[in-house]
């Protein structure tokens, strides 16, 4: 008992001593690990914000929905475009206050609540040493021999999986069901999330994996491995974006604004590619870090707005499920 009192005393003392305001940022689980962008963002931001940036991780949307107005978040980072509609409906968020015209995305962005901080495209990654004839187009992907195996993610549990379903929907529309049936022979398995899929690919279980156009960058920069390539299709690739948003009734409104501004800064934008293995949202391509500029990227980009996606999503997933359940 006495020991707890002493511990409590120490805790109180240290809190009383620390007058620095705390900015609580909710982030996805991967974000704050030592391999994620969290630590460097925290260090850089704290250099000038005169504050203490504290991460709080977990499943972003379920947590916000569960907590409602009692949320302790000041800022939420990492909400993907597929959940922004649901997040918006909570009415927890304030306008981001930044100039959308400073964005350098391949699509036009008009949302004034959710601010993109990095982006990528869905793509199938292969190992060029084991695959000598990678498909040159989505159509060619459908005609691959049955023994070429692909791992994908479940659109019901993974943003990249959902992006693939919307990608197929955007390319093939009403014929999506046939596309899935054609593809089903090549699908080795469907995993819950991206990391399980990618693990199967790097272990050699699968020939191709549904991932991002930016995945080869990791192998090039971190591992000096130049054998992993993204198959670029002329039909276009689905666009995926991660956003940051400010909680409306935060007590740290100024700090939160400061953070939003920091996200748009050149400094943040040059950190984020290598920290999060993704493309910066507000940095001209000519200013990208070396190696990133050489990354093969699709010329054509496909994207459904939040409202379009909401209309199509359920039907597209159901088509996918039906075709793969045969």
């Amino acid at each position, binding site marked *: 008992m006495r020991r707890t009192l002493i511990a409590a005393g120490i805790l109180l003392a240290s809190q009383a001593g620390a007058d620095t305001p705390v900015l609580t940022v909710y982030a996805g*689980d*991967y974000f*704050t*690990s*030592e*391999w*994620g962008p969290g630590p460097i963002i925290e260090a850089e931001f704290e250099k000038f914000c005169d504050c203490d940036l504290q*991460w*709080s*991780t*977990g*499943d972003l*949307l*379920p*947590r916000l*929905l*569960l*907590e409602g107005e*009692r949320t*302790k978040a000041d800022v939420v980072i990492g909400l993907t475009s597929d959940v922004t509609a*649901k997040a918006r409906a909570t009415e927890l968020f304030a306008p981001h206050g930044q100039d959308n015209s400073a964005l350098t995305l391949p699509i036009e962005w008009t949302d004034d609540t959710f601010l993109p901080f990095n982006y990528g495209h869905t793509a199938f990654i292969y190992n060029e040493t084991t695959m000598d004839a990678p498909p040159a187009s989505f159509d060619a992907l459908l005609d691959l021999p049955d023994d070429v*195996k692909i791992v994908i993610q*479940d659109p*019901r*549990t993974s943003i990249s999986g959902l992006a693939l379903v919307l990608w197929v929907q955007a390319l093939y529309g009403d014929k999506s069901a046939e596309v899935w049936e054609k593809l*089903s022979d090549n*699908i*080795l*398995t*469907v*995993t*819950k*999330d*991206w*990391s*399980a899929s*990618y*693990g*199967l690919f*790097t*272990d*050699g*279980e*699968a020939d191709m994996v549904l991932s991002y156009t930016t995945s080869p960058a*990791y*192998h090039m920069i*971190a591992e000096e491995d130049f054998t992993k390539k993204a198959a670029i299709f002329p039909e276009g690739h689905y666009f995926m974006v991660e956003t940051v948003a400010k909680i409306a009734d935060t007590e740290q409104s100024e700090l939160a604004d400061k953070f939003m501004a920091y996200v748009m800064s050149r400094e943040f934008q040059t950190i984020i590619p290598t920290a999060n*293995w993704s493309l910066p949202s507000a940095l001209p391509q000519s200013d990208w870090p070396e190696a990133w500029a050489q990354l093969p990227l699709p010329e054509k980009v496909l994207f459904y707005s939040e409202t379009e996606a909401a209309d199509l999503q359920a039907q597209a997933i*159901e088509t*996918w*499920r039906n075709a*793969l*359940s045969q």
Partner: protein
Amino acid sequence: MAQRAQPINGRAGVVAGTIVVASVCLAFLGIVLRAEPGAGLGPADWQAIRFTVVQATLSALISVALSVPLARALARRQMPGRQVLITLLGAPFILPVIVAVLGLLAVFGRNGWVNDTLGTLGLPGISIYGLHGVVLAHVFFNLPLATRLLLQGWQSIPAERFRLAAQLDLPPSMVFRTLEWPMLQRILPGAVALIFVICLTSFAVALTLGGGPKATTIELAIYQAFRFDFDLSRAALLSVIQLILAGGAALIALWIIPQLPLTGGMDRPVQRWDARGGGQRLLDGLVILLGSAFLLLPLASVAVSGTLGLPQVPASVWAAAGVSLWVAGLSVLVLLALALPLAGWIAIRARGSAEAIGLIGLSASPLMIGTGWFILINPVMDPVRLSLPVTAVVNALMALPFALRILVPGIREALASHGRLCLALNVNGWPAWRWLILPRCLPQIGFAAGLTGALSIGDLGVIALFADPDRTTLPLQMYRLMGAYQTEAAAGAALILLLMALGIFWICDKGARRYAEA
């Protein structure tokens, strides 16, 4: 027969039982209160329900069918290292799922040892993905359990009967019909039922090996409903269906589930005079070889790739291992605090129906319990601060039915042999626990604690829902490594996880037994 007087009463057990039921019911209530009327169950949900039942049935039947020859071979062969082998063969049951999947892939995957061998021989490969992959993994987990249960059955046949059979010079087929088949008839239905319930609530296996949306289990559908659709009413509905399905099967099974053997197979094999022919010997040897290969090769592959990855393991993994150890320790404490009084209560009742309470924990979705408590705690305090205790409670609930199966017979036996003496000496209540039950049941307590610790150390569980970044568990950290392209370090973490699960089990089990013998 009138209720016999007993040195312990059931009050603490009733309290513990109430806590168990309340922790599940309150969580459910929390969800229902927050849920808005939803669309109900869609075709995908019904498909999940069907698939769950089919795979659980297949997994249970195949596990038990394969365990018959394996247990028979182990029961009638004496060989050096038999006890070590039996101990090792039990390992998959306490293996963390994410570790086991890695091991299974290394052996049965497209690039695995089996397919490599088949390829070298010019034979067509096999695929581990799909229904058969899920079943294969479940058989891998549950074959050890079924084998232990059957081995116990074989050892319950008195040696005198085998002597009689030898005297009459019965051939192996007749020995099977007259001695072994009646025993199997008694044990098989319960073993099937138990494994069916375990597989019914399985979740993680189907994630990777399912092969596609048709291999969705109910638990996975609940996960989707919670985490991605945030459809609380659908999640609650699915939880209830799972509870009814698993709970119903469990209730029916309760009457026929055999007791979990403590020393299962650890005793010396019965001297056998039948099955001495060369053919029988060869057959048994082959069965043991195949069974061991199936159960041990995946472990070996985890060990090999893990050893290679060990140097890559960052310091944070060790910190996470410490947190996991803490959670496991807490889970064990919570489990013992619930299971001991409950088991005492069940043991002094004439009928065992109260044991159904223990099955509630296993039948309820951990995600439902976690989310429900998140909703309940949220208005009062920050749920993240309670994430580890909640995880510990959920883990303890999952292990409760196994613990009860282990503890109840031990307590019954202690009371049957020395309860009268306690009464005569006025050693009642706590002193009866202190001086009779706890010391007498120390081996069972160690076994239950080890099982709980091992199961909870590998559990990814509810912690993912509201994790504290500074207090990551090892499975979660391993998952993060996989998500950060760190495959080799993840393999190293998997090995650490494997060693910790086996180590915690071994320490509790052997430690308690040694102490009891000292």
